[in-house]
């Protein structure tokens, strides 16, 4: 059960994520950060809502656009920012972008940059947890476009057949780059694809953080069942910005009006209003949260700028693990 404090924390995570994203957006436009950003603004409720109830040992496979998952799972914003700056961090040592980094100590596995390609890895993580008889849950994020890949199909079916403790969370922001989901599939609801695998498919409003949280928690119960059962959750949402910073906000593949309509359904605004109405969040607290997160991200940027680049001499490290005599 979520308590008042939880709700406030969840709200803060969403604001922090958005501040992070908007700041990076701005930095990129000014040539101050090398990583080409794939902005998650408008989709914050999904990463936060799905990860908030997870334990440290639970495993997450973020998609390209699940910035919130890193933060909620425990990656400090300044480390994440330093990674985007391609600086030396323990996390990835400049070896990969901030979108595809991992920290096994926090239960985050680095995805591959191949759409759909990380899903098999997540299934494997869930398989390991099942074989080791831990009660860890794996949560695997991907977009609407990813559900058209062969890897999605094979992986979800495999997880179903092997009865694995995994929750598939589809962030359906209705576009894969410039391709509307309407042009890439003839089904209205991705959740319906679950039927092909004989597992539950659940559709939720992805801009309603509580709905996301509840759906994931229900799915976790199924994943912990005997036998465990995977669930496919579709979170309907919208991508406010372009696919990446190279793609203008309103490409020719969608209209300004559509974007504006969806901005009215802002997950943060929606939740803030709810919390206000419920008397959980005061105007004061809202301002404080804005301030705090702004300061945190400013500090993250400072940290990222000051952090040195990785040592070129270490570039070849970590291709192979050393063989210990056995």
């Amino acid at each position, binding site marked *: 059960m979520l308590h008042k404090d939880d709700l406030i924390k969840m709200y803060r995570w969403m604001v922090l994520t958005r501040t992070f994203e908007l700041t990076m957006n701005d930095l990129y436009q000014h040539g101050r950060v090398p990583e080409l950003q794939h902005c998650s603004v408008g989709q914050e409720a999904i990463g936060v809502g799905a990860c908030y109830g997870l334990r440290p040992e639970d495993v997450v496979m973020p998609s390209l656009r699940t910035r919130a998952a890193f933060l909620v799972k425990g990656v400090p914003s300044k480390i994440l920012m330093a990674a985007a700056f391609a600086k030396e961090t323990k996390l990835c040592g400049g070896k990969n972008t901030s979108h595809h980094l991992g920290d096994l100590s926090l239960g985050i596995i680095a995805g591959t940059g191949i759409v759909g390609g990380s899903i098999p890895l997540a299934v494997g993580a869930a398989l390991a947890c099942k074989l080791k008889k831990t009660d860890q849950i794996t949560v695997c994020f991907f977009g609407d476009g990813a559900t058209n*890949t062969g890897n999605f199909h094979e992986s979800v079916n495999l997880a179903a057949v092997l009865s694995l403790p995994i929750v598939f969370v589809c962030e359906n922001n209705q576009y894969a*780059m410039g391709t509307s989901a309407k042009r890439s599939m003839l089904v209205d609801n991705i959740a319906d694809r679950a039927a092909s695998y004989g597992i539950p498919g659940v559709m939720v409003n992805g801009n309603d953080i509580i709905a996301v949280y509840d759906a994931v928690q229900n799915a976790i119960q199924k994943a912990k069942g005997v036998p465990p059962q995977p669930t496919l959750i579709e979170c309907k949402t919208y991508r406010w910005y372009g696919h990446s910073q190279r793609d203008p906000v309103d490409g*020719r593949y969608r209209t300004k009006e559509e974007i504006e309509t969806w901005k009215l359904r802002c997950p943060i605004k929606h939740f803030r209003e709810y919390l206000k109405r419920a008397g959980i969040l005061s105007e004061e607290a809202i301002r404080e949260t804005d301030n705090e997160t702004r300061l945190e991200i400013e500090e993250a940027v400072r940290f990222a700028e000051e952090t040195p680049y990785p040592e070129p001499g270490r570039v070849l490290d970590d291709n192979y693990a050393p063989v210990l005599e056995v």
Partner: protein
Amino acid sequence: MREITLARALGEAIREEMIRDDTVFIIGVEVGLYGGCFRVTEGLFDEFGAERVIDTPISESALVGAAAGAAVMGMKPVAEVMYQDFATLVMDQILNGAAKLRYVHAGQATVPMVLRAPFGASGAGAHHSQSIEAMFCHIPGVKVVIPSTPYDAKGLLKSAIRDPNPVLFFEHKLTYGIKDEIPDEDYTVSLGKADIKLQGKDLTIVTWGLMVHKALNAAAELAKKGIELEVIDLRTLVPLDTATIVSSVKKTSRLMIVHEACKTGGYGSEITDIVTREAFGYLDSPVHRVATPDTTIPFSRPLLEAIIPDEKDIVAVALSMTGNRITEVENGI
């Protein structure tokens, strides 16, 4: 003559072939409405419509296989995979599908398709930076082409589209912006012919893609020291223009191969093998491969710069290979 970028040259080649032959069509992820991730196919959707400029779901295996199937049935598809790194997803459709269809039909089928994919490191991280052309060069039944200039790019792509075989056409991302004068009229550049981009007598460099430019820069540098490089741009990796390479090496007696792909299993050694046999006894020094070391490609610039071959590396190896000659030059002999 007009000056255009390599990306534009490719776009023009496709456009002109689509006008010339109505069996030519484009298929890929974001090739249409969006104009292509690297804008190579920009404008074609508006001009030719959704029928001949086909956007697909993110389903690379299906779309490349569909291209092969359509080719067998008489069309000439130009398929695109957004990054060569993702071409691993279609490896099966190429190796077991496109490349073998003619053979298993005992010659009854032809498979006139092109698969385009950008490659190379441009700072986009481990999964968007690779150069894996060598894997595809090991597939009997396909041809492999990599252009380095806008002129070549346009002429080669036209030949590729007209070729009755599956042609894998790989474009280094950092060459897209390179500009060149190209003719206004229709022309082609034949597949299977290397181009000597620079004549020289002291050392032969065999290379392709972006590295051609780095080699030419290095050559300019070395020319100041009196060392004359011969720079051969392979352009077509399969089939390989052995004659041009071997006769150059017989002239210069020294061979350096430069590629961005990582060294082990790279296509460079294929050339070493051929040259050390066909020009046996002509070599004054061992063949040297300048290549990226065997590593995942890192994101961070300083790491990246530490591994991708550049002018400095080429100059250094050339100097060490031509050691005697330099000493001569320096001593004014």
